[in-house]
Each structure stands twice: as structure tokens, then as C-alpha cells.
């Protein structure tokens, strides 16, 4: 740990169970659906349909996919922020710092780990801070009870933390509406990292910002993560941001994970046709080739097509694609893909879908 200007919270607080794996987060066969009934019509929207992945310690795992791929729902389930009509139908979510599934925690236990072990960064330009209170009050609300410090020491720690992230301390006295979008996002990042959590979930943190501010904010996020040594699940649809910040990358389509690899490999040699399309659509300076758009639209998650969910828009679709869902298979160390055309190792999935993770490579 870097020399801390804010003292380490008391070790008694930390629930350090012996880790079963080296994963900071292990998601196993997670399924979460929106169950609605409205004016006599019942629907089941399969937003997260059988996802298994693992995030290692001290790594940034990027999750890519277009809107309505289920990324945001996935985040909500992983953060245990599930509200009806969204329901977790199956699977488990295990963090490295907990000895059991997060959904098995009691309300008090969950409250104890929130922010201290698991924090959240959202799209900052929207209003995530209480509009009728100054910023310092938000810091008190979120972090004071975890730090175990007296009031004066607490604010000293906060100001030191802000200084390290190159933020002026007078930002504490401002009201949220007095800050620009980029400023608010920086404050949110400071807020999310002040308790030095083991895991940070970032939900499109740079999407609502202009490109210049994006660069700064991304740098800030990367520095903060490196300094604390936490793991991060970073969700955005913007592939260039992933190229910039993610160590490993997972691609979601229609509620399922279709490919996973290290960022360098993903960009160099994408296996799944959808990933290939995403990578190819990025403009490169000096490259005059036309970018084709995919025909069709993402499938209706309430009534997904049989077989591979991508086959209706896929240029490589075969008969087997129409018949059965491909399982997410490990084709090489650190590489997983769910496409029959990508590798002969890929077989139709069993009733559960992706094979269970087991040991992490």
C-alpha cells in the first residue's frame, strides 16, 4: 500500500475470509429477468441470461456491448441493486472479500460492505449527488461511518485524498449544480475511492462527457485504481475507451457473453463476428475503407430467437447456429468465445449455457 495520509481503518472491520480463488469477483451462471405484468399481459425480459465471468485482482475488466445488450442490468445484479420487476432467477455472485454469495448477506452485512469494500461510479453528468446539500455532506453520508475517524481528522483525510487526485479542496463547499459535468464526475470518482474499496464498479463514467474531459477522467480513474490496487468492472459501449483502459475485455450481446480476451488480443484478432464488427467500425487515422453497419436490430429480449442470438445479423451464420445456442468455450488460455464459426471447439450449450468456470487461469 502507498504511504497513506489517511490511516488504515481498523483491521477488525475487515472480513478477510480465506479466498477460494484468486478472483476479486466470480460470477457463475447468473440469470436475471424483468418479470412484468401490465394490463393482463405477462412478460419475461431476459436481460442477463446465463453469464459466467471472473475479474482478477488489481485488474480492470471492460464490458462492452451496445444498448439493450444487458450490460446495465448485469451491473445492477452484480452490485446487489436489484429492484422489482427485476429478479435474480439463478446463479451466484461471489466477491473475493466475502466468504459467500452477496445475495446471502443480511441487510446489515450488506450495508457494512457497501462503499467500504464495493463502490460504484456512474455517469456523473446526471444527478448522483443530493442537489440540496453541499458536496462535503455527500462525503459524510457515504464515507464517515467507515473511516472510523473524528470529524476533523475525517475532513483532513478527505482533503488529502482530493489533493492526491488533483482536486481543489473548495469543491467540498459547492452545491452539485455549481459544478460542471466533468467536475462532478471527478468528485464522484474521489467519493468512490476514498474508502479504498477492493472492488469498484464503473457504469459508463465517461459517456456523457466531451472527449477532452474524457481523457482526463480516464487517466484519473486509472491512477486511482493503480494506487489503491482495487479491481474494477468497467462498462461502456465505447470501444476506444476500452482500448484505453481495460486490461481484459468481455463482449455482451442480447444478455449473453459472446467473447472474452485480453484487450490487446481482442483488438488484434477478434474471433466472434460481432466483436469483429465492433473493432472494425472504429475509425483509424489514414484508413479510407468504408465502414459497413450491421443489418437488423438487437433481438427482443422477451422473445429471443432460437439458437445463437446473433445469427439473424451474422454474415457467417450456418445451420447449426439457427438450431442451438453456442456455449462460451475456452479456446486458448485467457480466451473464451461463443461462436461455432470461430472455433471447432465450440459446442451447443447444455441447459445451463456456458460451462461453469471452475479454476481461474
Amino acid at each position, binding site marked *: 500500500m502507498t504511504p497513506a495520509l489517511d490511516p488504515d481503518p481498523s483491521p477488525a472491520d475487515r472480513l478477510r475470509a480465506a479466498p477460494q480463488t484468486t478472483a476479486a469477483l466470480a460470477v457463475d451462471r447468473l440469470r436475471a429477468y424483468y418479470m412484468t405484468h401490465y394490463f393482463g399481459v405477462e412478460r419475461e425480459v431476459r436481460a442477463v441470461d446465463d453469464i459466467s465471468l471472473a475479474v482478477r485482482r488489481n485488474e480492470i475488466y471492460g464490458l462492452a456491448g451496445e444498448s439493450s445488450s444487458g450490460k446495465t442490468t448485469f451491473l445492477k445484479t452484480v452490485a446487489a441493486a436489484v429492484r422489482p420487476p427485476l429478479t435474480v432467477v439463478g446463479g451466484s455472485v461471489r466477491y473475493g472479500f466475502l466468504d459467500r454469495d452477496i445475495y446471502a448477506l443480511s441487510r446489515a452485512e450488506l450495508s457494512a460492505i457497501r462503499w467500504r469494500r464495493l463502490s460504484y461510479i456512474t455517469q456523473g453528468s446526471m444527478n448522483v449527488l443530493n*442537489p440540496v446539500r453541499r458536496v462535503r455532506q455527500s462525503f459524510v453520508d457515504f464515507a464517515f461511518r467507515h473511516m472510523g475517524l473524528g470529524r476533523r481528522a475525517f475532513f483532513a483525510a478527505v482533503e488529502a485524498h482530493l489533493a492526491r487526485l488533483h482536486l481543489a479542496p473548495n469543491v467540498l463547499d459547492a452545491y452539485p449544480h455549481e459544478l460542471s459535468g466533468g467536475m462532478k464526475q471527478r468528485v464522484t470518482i474521489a467519493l468512490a475511492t476514498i474508502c479504498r474499496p477492493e472492488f469498484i464498479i464503473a457504469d459508463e463514467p465517461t459517456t456523457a462527457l466531451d472527449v477532452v474531459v474524457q481523457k482526463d477522467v480516464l487517466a484519473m480513474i486509472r491512477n486511482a485504481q493503480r494506487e489503491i490496487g482495487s479491481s474494477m468492472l468497467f462498462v461502456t459501449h465505447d470501444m476506444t475507451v476500452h482500448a484505453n483502459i481495460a486490461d481484459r475485455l468481455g463482449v455482451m450481446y442480447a444478455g449473453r457473453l459472446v467473447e472474452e480476451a485480453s484487450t490487446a488480443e481482442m483488438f488484434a484478432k477478434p474471433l466472434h463476428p460481432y466483436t469483429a464488427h465492433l473493432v472494425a467500425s472504429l475509425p483509424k487515422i489514414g484508413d479510407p475503407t468504408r465502414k459497413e453497419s450491421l443489418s437488423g436490430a438487437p433481438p427482443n429480449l422477451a422473445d429471443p430467437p432460437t439458437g445463437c442470438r446473433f445469427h439473424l445479423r451474422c454474415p457467417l451464420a450456418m445451420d447449426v447456429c439457427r438450431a442451438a445456442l453456442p456455449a462460451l468455450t475456452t479456446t486458448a488460455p485467457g480466451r473464451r468465445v461463443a461462436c461455432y464459426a470461430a472455433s471447432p471447439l465450440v459446442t451447443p450449450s447444455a441447459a445451463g449455457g456456458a460451462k461453469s468456470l471452475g479454476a481461474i487461469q
Partner: protein
Amino acid sequence: MAGYAVYVLRRIGQFVLVVFVGINIAFFVTHATPIDPITAAIAAATRFSQADPQAVQVTREALRELYGLQGNLWQQYVAFWMRVAVADFGPSLSAFPTPVSTLIWRAMPWTFGLLSIATLISWGLGNLLGGLAGYYRRNVPLKAFGVIASGLQPIPNYVMAFVVLVLFGYVWPILPITGSAQINLPQGWTLAYFHSVFQHALLPVLSLVLVGTGAWFIGMRALVSNIVTEDYVTYAELGGVDRRRILVSYVMRNALLPQVTGLALSLGLIFNGAVITEVVFGYPGLGNLLIRAVYAGDYSLVIGIASMSIIAVAFAALVVDLILPLLDPRVRAA
């Protein structure tokens, strides 16, 4: 801080506009219509008797002076505004020679007292319970309260007052139903007097509160249900902020802002309700005074009350509007 100054000036400007338009309306209704109040008054007085023409002429002149109807329309207009400016509408016809303003000032505290207490209770209670009902959606007692409130809310003030009167005046006569205090009790700062005032105020306040609370409850509940889905509330929940603090500092604080604005907008209606309730309970406020003035054909008193009502409500709205920026920092900046 400059933002606040601009806001204050704008609100005061609005207040001036309201008073101006309102008093103009009062003027034109009374002076610019083909109906001549003096003829009507004379006709009422001479209905059953013969009158000496000279006496009638003198009365006509006297009334004209009393009512400020001398000269042409413009002169009457100026005279009218001068009266409003100093709040002096001349002597009252039915309680001659007591000035109209004295009668109004005597009645005003009763109306004001009734109004403030009833509004405080219904706004405060309605918002508190509505906020809790919106946050704790499955709580059964709160749900039941909501159903009752919905049921009572559409009933107009007069009907509610009447029902309360019948229930507690005839069916179950436990409380006094007219007047502000026991008649033979000397006024003053004595416990006995306060007790009597309290007893007499109970039914009118009850009637107003029964009708008023429902509206605030339902509005607050809807507001809170929406605010609970706002980003800053979900974020605070993700942050594990203490639930009670979320309820008070994040949800209620933000929900109260539109309710304060709503209060300013509803003051006209609240005043209306109070005045009507007074009529039913014979409470010696402006409402009662107004009705008796109409029965007695007291021109100056009626105009005086109408004008002062407009000014009073406009002023109350101004006060409430000036409190809003203290609660909402975003308004200060705008």
C-alpha cells in the same frame, strides 16, 4: 447572492401586479356596471313607505359621499385607489359610524388564526404522512390512511363543514358550533378565555384539516414515489447510506420543495375554504362579516373585505415564495 436579490425583486413585482389587477377588477365590477348601488339602496329603504323627495335627495348625496361615488369614472378610480392605499373605506353603513377598516381588523385575526393553524396541521401532517407512505409502500396503516384521505379530499369545504356541524352539533353535541369564544367570557389573556377559544376553534379547524390533509398527502406520496427513483437516491442506496438519512435528507428535503411552491399557489383556495367554513360555524372572521355585510346591503364593507382579501392572500403568497430560495439552493442561482 445577487441571484437571490433578483428573485426577491421579481417576486415583489409579481405581488404588486396581483394587487393592481385584483383591485382593478374589484373596481370595475363595482363601478363600471350599469347597476347603481345607490338606487338599489334607496329602493330598499323606501320599499314599504312613502319618502319625502328632498330627504331622498339628501340621502342620495350622503350615500354618494360615503361610497366614494362622486365625480366621473376617473375621479372615482383615483378616490378608490386612495382608499385602498390607506386601507380606509370609510364608515360602515350597517354598523355606522364604525369605520370599515376597524371591522375588518377585528375580524382578520380570527380568520388568520383559523387559517394558519388549519394549514399548518394539514400541510405538515399531510406531507409527513404522505412522505412516509411514498417511501414505505407496503405499510398497511399508511395505505389505509391514504384511502381515507382520497375519500375525503374531493369533498368541498362547505359540505364538509356542514357534515361536521351536523355530526358534532346535533348528533353528538359535545362541542360548541358557533362563535369564537363563550359570549359572556371577558376577553383577555386568561386561561379560561384561551380554553374557550380553543374549544370553539376545534370544529372549524377539524373541518378544514379533514379536507386539506388529503390533498397534501396524495401529492407528497406521488412526489416521493418519483423521487425514490431519482439518481441521487439510488446512488445513496448503493453507497449504503443510512436509510433514515436517505428518507430525511435525500427524499423528503427534495420533495418538500414543490410542496412549498404548491402551498403558495394554493393560498387562494385555502383562504377560500377558511372563509366558507367560518360562515357555517358562525366564526367571527372575514367570511361571516362578508355575508352579513351582503345581507345588510353594506356596500363599503363588502368592497373593503373583497379588496383586503385579495391583498392578504397575495401577501401570504409572497412570503411563502420568499422562503423557497432558503430551502432550494438551485433557485438562488437562477
